């Protein structure tokens, strides 16, 4: 069992201890999880999966709540800003 996991956030690798949530990995990478309807950068608010501010695309699947998901080796995370560009 690895004690570290590497995921990519918008193409850039991020190394985190295992047991880290994807939302945390995104914050550690200094990125905003998404852009709001009017273009504001947004990050996690509730930390428990009800606010949907932390939604990102995981391995191509959109609208996944990153705070409710733990990082897995090789996961590809794309923040919403990246998808629509």
């Amino acid at each position, binding site marked *: 069992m690895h004690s570290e996991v590497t995921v990519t956030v918008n193409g850039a690798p991020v190394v*985190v201890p295992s047991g880290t949530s994807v939302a945390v990995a995104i*914050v550690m990478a200094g990125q*905003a999880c998404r852009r709001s309807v*009017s273009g504001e950068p947004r990050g996690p608010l509730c930390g428990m999966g009800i606010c*949907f501010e932390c939604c990102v695309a995981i391995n191509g699947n959109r609208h996944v709540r990153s705070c409710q998901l733990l990082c897995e080796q090789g996961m590809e995370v794309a923040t919403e800003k990246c998808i629509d560009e």
Partner: protein
Amino acid sequence: MAAAACAAECGVRVGMVDDNPSLGGQIWRGESDGQHHPDASKWVRRVRRSGAAVLCGWRVVHQPEEGVLLAENLSGFCELKYGKLVLAPGARERFLPFPGWTLPNVMGAGGLQAMVKCGLPIRGKRVIVAGTGPLLLAVADYLRKHGAEIPLICEQACWRSLAKFGLALVRWPAKIVQGLRLKFDLAGVPLAANSWPLAAHGETTVERVTVSRAGRVEDIPCDYLACGFHLVPNIELPLLLGCAVGNGCVQVNEFQETTSSSVFCAGEPTSIGGVELALIEGQIAGLAAAGRTREARAWFEKRKKARGFAQLLDRTFRLRTELKSLSRSETVVCRCEDVSYSRLRQHTCWRSAKLHTRCGMGSCQGRVCGPMTQFLFKWKPDSVRPPVFPARVESLAALARQLEGQPTAK
């Protein structure tokens, strides 16, 4: 966990469904980090030993027919057939809007704690903790123990309420001990009553917060603002199942049974009352659902006592009216659809605002903006429709495919 363990220990076939990646809910999030309350490990072990089937990472989205729940996770869906159902969906934080509250690194109090439990580095970071409720102290304590610097805790309740709260705790000695330990652990952290955030400032993340502190305005630099205004019961699934609700809480009888047959409810959705009450109610519900009414009765006295604490919480941490006027006209209220305060003010009810501005129509299904607009404008919420949580089209279109059991649903 309490309900599932108790029911399974009676020999009943039990299934547990929870959206979170592991057992523990919100209060005991992150069983793997080993830093939590000893009670948490005790209950996790008890659930594991009881033989209850545990489905973590699954969320219930719909009840397609009587006695069946539709649940989905990241990759699939299933239908859960049940004879009895115990709902323990907990509570969520109440948020209130103020200028800058949508800046990244402004989070709920429990929200930031959850992030730290999931690995967010907080050592050496400055965190302002604000809002209302005992959660603030618990969060500040947790963050401090993980190396955060807390320049200030802003509690909007007044000193008189807090003092009365402190005195009233004499009825619950365990809570006094808890409180004193917190006070000791938090020695040196300024706690301001009559205090609330006025605005958060920063470029791409929050960099400083302006707070009102006993009538004075103060600017405090920080890395995070952990801000939550007590808790709101998660009653969406109970409502979908037809349970009667009063004052925003699910109505239950002495056995924690709701008005919907075969459906029980325990914990915060019946009233915000903290861990002890939730555990007691969970045990009563689990035992009653398993048909063990005599054993369930044994907990009634303890529950009565714990319920008193819920009432005390409710009285002490009422929101003050100043909090209604923090927003400016351009302050975003509905975050999913970016609807501003001024646009919402033009409407006379939730339904009108929803239809004409889309407030409440976003992914959170009104979980964030609903309680907010109820406080700001006294709007009454709408009825609940499926799915109670966004669900994949294929799950909603599913034909029956079963995992059988007697679920205790999150």
